[in-house]
């Protein structure tokens, strides 16, 4: 005999408190075109919740790159500027210089930031620009069909590395969070992964640290969020989190990489549940 199935189409009749809204107030539309099992909406939710939970944020501008997540420009209830592929950091720079009281963040994928826009992110970080760049890293160009990017790890399946990325043939990935942490202009650098609930919570914590760092004028802040893309990886959706953690998470290691302008040693940075 199987377990009873409870009614879930309306709030409970028994006295209860709603502890979690279905979606943040700052989310304009719950429906989106992201694939089943995509990790990007999890990161987007955390960004919006972080903004909602920080009353010290008096204004916010999001600069959105080009990828699957571009649609979030329409569904985040903060002023948004849509940038070209790779170019969000320079737009964020101009916006922040003119509106220094506002929280200015970018939302970019790995193809956008680390392929097309590598120059932009490195210069913006080195300059110590007081913006927060957020990377959604799934190791593929999701929107164009799942090809390899500069962050795809050795052995990772993508549309043009179906047998796994091969170092001799495809070259090596760039560990962008680690690279940015080397730059003196970068003040807070962290990497999380949304493969489980704990990772999602840690993502929000890191975003809040980064936003606080920006508001304090501490320099460039960066949060890299590893996200699932089962479509791009050609795996069932249920296997996405495990693949993310094992394949990408073993190379792009989660944790705080830099705090208050100082490198955090790898052994001391295992705050991501590793």
């Amino acid at each position, binding site marked *: 005999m199987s*377990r009873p*199935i409870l009614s879930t189409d309306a709030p409970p009749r028994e006295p*209860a408190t709603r*502890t979690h809204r279905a979606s943040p107030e700052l989310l304009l539309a719950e429906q989106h075109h992201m694939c089943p099992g995509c990790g990007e909406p999890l990161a987007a939710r955390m960004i919006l919740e972080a903004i909602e939970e920080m009353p010290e944020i008096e204004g916010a501008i999001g600069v959105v790159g080009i990828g699957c997540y571009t649609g979030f420009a329409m569904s985040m209830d903060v002023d948004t500027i849509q940038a070209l592929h790779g170019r969000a950091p320079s737009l964020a720079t101009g916006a922040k210089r003119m509106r220094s009281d506002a929280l200015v963040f970018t939302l970019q994928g790995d193809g956008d930031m680390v392929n097309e826009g590598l120059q932009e992110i490195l210069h913006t970080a080195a300059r110590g620009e007081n913006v927060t760049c957020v990377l959604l890293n799934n190791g593929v160009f999701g929107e164009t069909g799942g090809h390899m990017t500069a962050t795809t790890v050795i052995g990772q399946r993508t549309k043009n590395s179906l047998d796994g990325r091969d170092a001799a043939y495809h070259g090596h990935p760039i560990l962008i969070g680690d690279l940015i942490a080397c730059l003196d202009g970068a003040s807070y650098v962290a990497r999380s992964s949304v493969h*489980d609930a704990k990772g999602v919570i840690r993502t929000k914590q890191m975003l809040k640290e980064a936003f606080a760092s920006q508001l304090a004028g501490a320099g460039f802040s960066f949060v890299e969020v590893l996200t699932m893309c089962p479509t791009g990886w050609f795996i069932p*959706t249920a296997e996405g989190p495990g693949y993310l953690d094992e394949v990408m998470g073993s190379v792009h290691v989660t944790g705080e990489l830099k705090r208050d302008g100082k490198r955090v040693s790898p052994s001391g940075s295992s705050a991501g549940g590793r």
Partner: protein
Amino acid sequence: MATATSRGTVTINVAQCKGCELCIPACPPRVLEMSSEVNSNGYAYPLLHPGCTGCGACLLVCPDFVFAVYRFAEPVVHEGSESRESPEVGP
């Protein structure tokens, strides 16, 4: 007769679910199970069994904003299940 207690519950927006199944293993008490029916988009969706703690893990890992989470003022006891076995419960 076996009983189960729920400290919390969820609402599930069935129409919005895309059947990714990430909520199933994310639920610590394993009280979510995918349906055999499909929604209007052709996706299976989660069903709730007794034993929810209201922790919100399902909501955190759901890409489609399907869940809202509630905590009961008093734990709710569910009667009537003959067995607490479920194929979804793992080690």
